[in-house]
């Protein structure tokens, strides 16, 4: 019952706060902050994965990036992949959300089906789709035989390989954006639809004038999340095509991985990863900015 127990309480609170933050803080600093700066340091070196060869070379790694044709090829492939997946994924997610939104057991089951493919791991997804698209014993082989064609080797085909990976990604990833859209749809007050009904609005008019404007923030959010997410594509390409044929599907993260863990050029790979980081940072900033705008 000390006279200034309030000050004591405040001091106790601050102490409690630091204790509550300590576990997170220590792990955060050790496994995120420190590696980030260590990465900067490594990227200024010629640094080998194993052994102790490391030589300070300044910004040479970053300069080398400009003339590395495979790097630019990988950037191009990644951008192509993003351009293929993001719009289709967003559109498909929206269409599916509209189709499965609402009451009823059947719609619940449908929602689960479209969402379920997102809980599989990348290696299961690629296994399934490598099989589906296989020219030897794939799911489509009987179909090709039926129309009298030689089965197409999708993953070995120079122009079809990347779209095949995109299709796989679409199947794998549509659940999350669909759920985001479903959440947004459920936020639209039912009275709005009832009023539109009384105003003789057609189904299309309702979609265009009420539904879509009400969820526009979510559309933006999904687009940005998708861009950031799809930029990081690695597993699908790494496991389905190994970057082939002829580097057609070699993506940025995959190239970083290979440079570091196959070619052992850790310094150079780290420099690349910082390039990717900066690129994604731009998009993440955009996302946070949009998120804040959505709050208003």
């Amino acid at each position: 019952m000390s006279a200034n127990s309030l000050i004591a309480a405040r001091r106790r609170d601050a102490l409690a706060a630091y204790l509550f933050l300590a576990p997170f803080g220590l792990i955060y600093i050790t496994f995120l902050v420190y590696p980030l700066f260590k990465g900067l340091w490594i990227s200024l070196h010629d640094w080998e994965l194993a052994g102790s060869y490391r030589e300070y070379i300044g910004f040479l790694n970053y300069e080398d990036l400009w003339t590395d044709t495979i790097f630019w090829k990988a950037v191009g492939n990644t951008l192509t992949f993003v351009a293929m997946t993001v719009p289709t994924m967003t559109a498909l997610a929206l269409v599916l959300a509209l189709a499965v939104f609402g009451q009823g057991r059947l719609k619940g089951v449908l929602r689960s089906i479209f969402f379920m493919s997102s809980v599989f791991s990348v290696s299961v997804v690629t296994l399934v789709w490598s099989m589906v698209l296989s020219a030897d014993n794939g799911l489509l082989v009987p179909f090709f035989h039926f129309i009298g064609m030689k089965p197409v080797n999708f993953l070995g085909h120079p122009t079809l390989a990347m779209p095949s990976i995109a299709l796989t990604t679409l199947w794998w990833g549509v659940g999350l954006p669909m759920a985001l859209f479903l959440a947004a749809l459920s936020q639209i007050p039912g009275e709005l639809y009832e009023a539109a009904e009384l105003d003789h609005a057609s189904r299309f008019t309702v979609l265009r004038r009420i539904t879509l404007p009400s969820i526009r923030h979510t559309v933006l959010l999904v687009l940005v999340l998708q861009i950031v997410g799809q930029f990081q594509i690695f597993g699908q390409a790494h496991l389905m095509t190994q970057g082939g044929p002829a580097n057609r599907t070699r993506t940025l993260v995959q190239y970083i991985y290979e440079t570091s863990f196959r070619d052992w050029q850790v310094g150079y790979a780290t420099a690349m990863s910082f390039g990717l980081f900066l690129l994604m940072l731009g998009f993440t900033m955009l996302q946070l900015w949009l998120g804040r705008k959505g709050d208003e």
Partner: protein
Amino acid sequence: MASARTSGLRRVTDLLILGATVAFAILWLLPVIWVVAMSLKPNAELMRSTAGFLPVPFTLDNYIGLLKLDTVPRWLMHSLIVSVTMTCLVLVVSSMAGYAFARLEFPFKKTLFLLMVAGLMVPEQAVFIPLHTMVSGWGLHNTHFALVMPRVAVPIGVFLMMQFFRSVPKELEEAAAIDHASRLTIFLKIMLPLSVPAVTTLGLFTFIFAWNDFLWPLVSATKADMYTVTVGLASIQSNFAFSEGLGAVMASAVFASLPIVLLFLIFQRFIVAGVAMSAGK
């Protein structure tokens, strides 16, 4: 009766859309059904043809063979250990930090919060190489510790918990303060019991993330007997000659997905709620 006709028309369109969606959903499931069917067929049959969505002739040999193998059950065990540990640690660490940010006043709160939020912008690809070097230096690759620890401090987890704690009426804590409850008592006896829905959601997402984590386990767990099931399956894909043990490979995939699919089917509600929650922030 024009109005009767329009509402009749509407009904028909509704049914058509629903029908098309159902058809699409079946198409969506076909690859999964096909893979499950293959996992239940004898290899000899698969050598002949992989066609057909029904497991005829039926056999459990692929699964029995799998269980006799040393690899897949071991990978599954690693995945379980890693995912459960990671989930528990994330929950503990995130709820504590989230509570501090939501309800306590302390010097440098804003700065520390910004430092944490900044972490949201760092993709794992930006740090996985230096992290690998670091863990190498400690000689800790191919351990559960290395698989778990880099994934424990997740800013989004703190963010979610903070959002949740903020939604708890402040009066509850004031009532508890009058009731002579210490900060720890308030956190343990009032806030944590109330946050069961948020904790469940965050836990599920962490578990699924941990189970499916690929890039980091791929570079950290390099010995086959330390693989997680996700990395293990990836290794099967690149090493196995598919035609040899196709049924076994498919069975491994099904086996590896079973825990996560079950978890999903049981806790769907929380997962969907979680998506809504993270969208709401």
